[in-house]
């Protein structure tokens, strides 16, 4: 253990107090978002762990509304970029325009200068636009002309991908997808949730307004605490085992997975799995990580980091199937 004098009890209490805003935030968001608790929870993990989220789901599942509500509840700036094949990098990051009156070039900032970005249908734009956004995500800064601008914190990119209508899309390369901390697959709401959605949308008072309940500064403070959440070396070993099992499944008595995996999780996968586990523990108001935390976010952190072979695709084996096998084979500490 890196610091034996670490007072978990004190930290636990601190986190218990500091994480109280999570419930308030959830309550406020739930005023407009019916169901989709899973997605909202993952957005919060991304927010707390400084990781961007890739959402995959059919249109109309309240992806935009969720992130809009989240930004409203945090009193943060929100911008939405609809990715299209004719979009240019300058349309995202901004450009220099000529001011005739002043006879000089001035910087015109793009929509990326916000706290919450919704990159809608990211796979519809060509590679150079995708990489411009992903570079900004990674560096958290943008260079326009000769000037470099730091992006405001908190900075969270929520990109969406439509699993249908793949024609004319530019699939994100593996290296780019790896930069997203999580890939969340959103499903349809339940019957009961759908009934609530209809009623809520048809009520005569109109749509409910979200009030700012959390300050961005609170989020930044919470981020610092998330990194302090205690992770035992047994949990670290568990994370390493899971990631290594995606690379060398035969070492974990999972030789049958070897022909199905073309490449396993990168070290970035281990980092993100650890960080997201800490954020999850924080949301559960704990000052330490338990194996449940790792398992809860494992699918979202790992699913886009496992390359499937042609054989796997031919047999309709998904990365989720592989991860299930791995989680059922790797011993829990």
């Amino acid at each position: 253990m890196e610091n034996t004098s670490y007072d978990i009890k004190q930290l636990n209490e601190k986190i218990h107090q500091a994480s109280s805003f999570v419930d308030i935030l959830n309550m406020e968001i739930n005023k407009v978002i019916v169901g989709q608790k899973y997605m909202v929870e993952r957005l919060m993990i991304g927010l707390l762990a400084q990781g961007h989220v890739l959402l995959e789901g059919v249109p109309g599942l309240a992806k935009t509304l969720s992130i809009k509500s989240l930004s409203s509840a945090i009193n943060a700036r929100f911008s939405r970029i609809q990715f299209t094949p004719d979009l240019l990098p300058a349309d995202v990051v901004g450009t220099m325009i000529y001011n005739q009156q002043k006879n000089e070039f001035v910087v015109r900032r793009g929509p990326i200068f916000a706290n919450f970005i919704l990159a809608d249908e990211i796979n519809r734009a060509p590679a150079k636009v995708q990489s411009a956004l992903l570079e900004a995500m990674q560096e958290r800064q943008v260079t326009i002309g000769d000037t470099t601008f730091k992006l405001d914190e908190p900075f969270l990119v929520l990109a969406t991908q439509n699993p249908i209508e793949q024609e004319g899309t530019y699939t994100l390369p593996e290296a780019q997808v790896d930069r997203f901390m999580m890939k969340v697959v959103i499903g349809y709401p339940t019957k009961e949730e759908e009934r609530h959605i209809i009623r809520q949308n048809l009520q005569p008072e109109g749509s409910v307004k979200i009030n700012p309940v959390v300050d961005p500064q609170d989020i930044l403070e919470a981020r610092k605490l998330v990194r302090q959440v205690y992770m035992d070396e047994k949990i670290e070993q568990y994370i390493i085992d899971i990631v290594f099992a995606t690379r060398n499944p035969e070492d974990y008595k999972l030789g049958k997975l070897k022909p199905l995996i073309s490449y396993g999780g990168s070290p970035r996968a281990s980092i993100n799995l650890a960080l997201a586990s800490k954020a999850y523990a924080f949301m559960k108001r704990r000052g330490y990580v338990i194996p449940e935390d790792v398992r809860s976010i494992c699918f979202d952190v790992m699913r886009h980091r496992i390359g499937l072979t042609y054989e796997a695709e031919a047999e309709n084996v998904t990365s989720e199937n592989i991860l299930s096998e791995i989680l059922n084979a790797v011993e829990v500490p």
Partner: protein
Amino acid sequence: MKVNKNIFVYTLLGCLLATSQLFAQEQYQDYFKVKASPDTTKIRIGEPIRVALTAKVMIYALKGANLKVVFPNLPDSLNHIEIVERTQIDTTGSNEQQKLFKQIVTLTSFDSGRWEMPPMKFEVFSVTDGSYDSVFTEPFFIDVNTVAVDTTKAFKPIKELRSVGWNILDYWPYLLACLALSAAIVLYFVFWHKKRKPAVAAAPVKPAKPPYQLAMEQLELLEKEKTWNSDVKLYYTQLTDILRQYFEQQFHIAALEQTSAELMQNIKPVTVLNQQRDKLQTILTVADLAKFAKLQPSPQEHEDCLRKAIAVVEWTKPSAVATEQPAPNSTNS
């Protein structure tokens, strides 16, 4: 008379000197001898002639005897004669006095007539002093005759195909290949069978001792060793591992690969185990805190957890599983 005697002596000495000089010259002239000896000089069209080319060098004639003999460089075809084959130069006949070089050249001709094999040039170099000499072989004639055709007789019809009798020796490569293939198949099946055997044997993996007995022995050992005095984390890891192994062997629940929450969920269908869920919940919660949150439970709690673990194993021992009759006052402690 004295004058005549002197003349005679000088004449005799002169003769002797001249003779020895001539002898020496002859000796030096013969130090490099070459020869081309055909085995025959009369052939029918296309028949081979083996010509032995020999070069003999007397070593005493060359300073240092470090010599190099160059054989004639014959073209593939010359003067109606074809060079079919050349053997390697053979030096086996050499000894301390002489060096013998031998090469067999096979010739033939496809033109009838009398053809001359021209003189062939051999060269000898002394590596020691750089001296050089060359000698030619004697030319020889080859009579190439056509096959005599009796034109007075009529043309004979083309002969029928002759069938050759079956001989096992004609098919030995195929028989050998068949045998090798059969042997490979047999060996493959033998090894495959051997390889499969342990897997088949490993499937039941029945412990030498019944799970109940094994768990009780391990718990008693744990109690005796009192590991909690030295390493609390190790103690709780061992305690939960004993229980998880017991559940895996006794109830076929993959407990080692499940988190505490998952385990509590999965024991529900096992009635006899579910009856002990409160005790189990306490053990797992304290163990998780000790393992992952650096909690230092009191000595009372260590022993209490051990007692509870023994009670769970006692309650769920095979006889209890068979009868499945829960005692109402023994579910919780």
